[in-house]
């Protein structure tokens, strides 16, 4: 199972002991990702980048598609495929809302599964990210040949930015060679 590893960080205002403020923080992979992104994109502001604009990729179109999946009738595939519950549609729409916080994250390939749930797939040169959402749970994996497999699972309504951040970080971002373990703030 994926654990959103927490990294102990101590903000240290430059090297000036007088201004040093040692306040332990817990930084998730998602925050690491944002920090790394900012480091690489110094000229870009955080907020315009991470606001849920969905401009680069059409999230509304994706939501419309998901709503259409909610209209599938039983046996939609000729092999006994089940219709998709309103609960799952709502979970999937929320999932897209969270994806929208990552404007540079391409839309996943969205498909109905025969047992009446929805799958989301990203495939890149780094590997494959897969999430499926059911009535009560989500499940998935990150298949990263260079790192091994990361398994994802939880309650369906617990999907959050950290999970999507892991997908984004592992499949769409250049890797940094050294993990961030400490953040220093300087004026």
């Amino acid at each position, binding site marked *: 199972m994926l654990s959103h590893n927490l990294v102990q960080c101590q903000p240290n205002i430059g090297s000036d002991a007088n201004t040093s403020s040692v306040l332990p923080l817990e930084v998730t992979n998602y925050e690491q990702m944002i920090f790394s992104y900012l480091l690489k994109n110094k000229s870009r502001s955080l907020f315009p980048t991470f606001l849920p604009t969905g401009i680069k990729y059409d999230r509304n179109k994706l939501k419309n598609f998901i709503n259409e999946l909610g209209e599938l009738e039983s046996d939609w595939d000729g*092999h006994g495929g089940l219709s998709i519950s309103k609960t799952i549609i709502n979970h999937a729409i929320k999932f897209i809302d969270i994806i929208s916080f990552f404007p540079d994250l391409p839309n996943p390939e969205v498909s109905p599964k025969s047992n009446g749930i929805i799958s989301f797939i990203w495939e890149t040169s780094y590997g494959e990210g897969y999430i499926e959402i059911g009535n009560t749970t989500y499940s998935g994996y990150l298949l990263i040949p260079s790192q091994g497999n990361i398994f994802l699972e939880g309650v369906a309504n617990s999907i959050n930015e950290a999970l999507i951040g892991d997908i984004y970080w592992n499949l769409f971002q250049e890797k940094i060679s050294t993990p961030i373990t400490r953040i220093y703030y300087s004026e």
Partner: protein
Amino acid sequence: MDLDQWPTTINDDENIVRGICSPFHVSKKGELTRRAYDPTPNTDEVSVFRSDMIGADICKQKSKELENPTVKKVYRGLAVLSAKKIREEEIDVVDSRGHFYGHADIKHGFKVMAGETLKPEILLALETRNKKLAKIANYHPDPFSASSTWDGPPLIFEHIETDS
């Protein structure tokens, strides 16, 4: 040979055909997707035909029985694998003539339950396998889908090497 004379054991060299009726089982590029080999809900089974036993026309006619154009479920074509290739994925394909002569099931070995997700480890195994099956299958879109006879290429599995 009469159909009831066919052995229930499926030989490795038999061709195994899946009827494709869903737009979600074919990509925009016209390629078979991994969803084409999802098990029937609440089972571990994927319905297929023993085409060597019943012939291509029956495979097509049985597939067309599955379609319902009013709900956008339209017969599109047939996908061919060999029993050997299926078994190389550490799953089996077994005769299930209780449905009708020529019917068989690919057995994934674990059930997918209605409306619920699989454990991620099992899910990865299923997705990896389905992706492989969809990739190596010879998918033939039906050039004359309205007719009752199969006029496409012979339903004989041919292994095609791919780059990835």
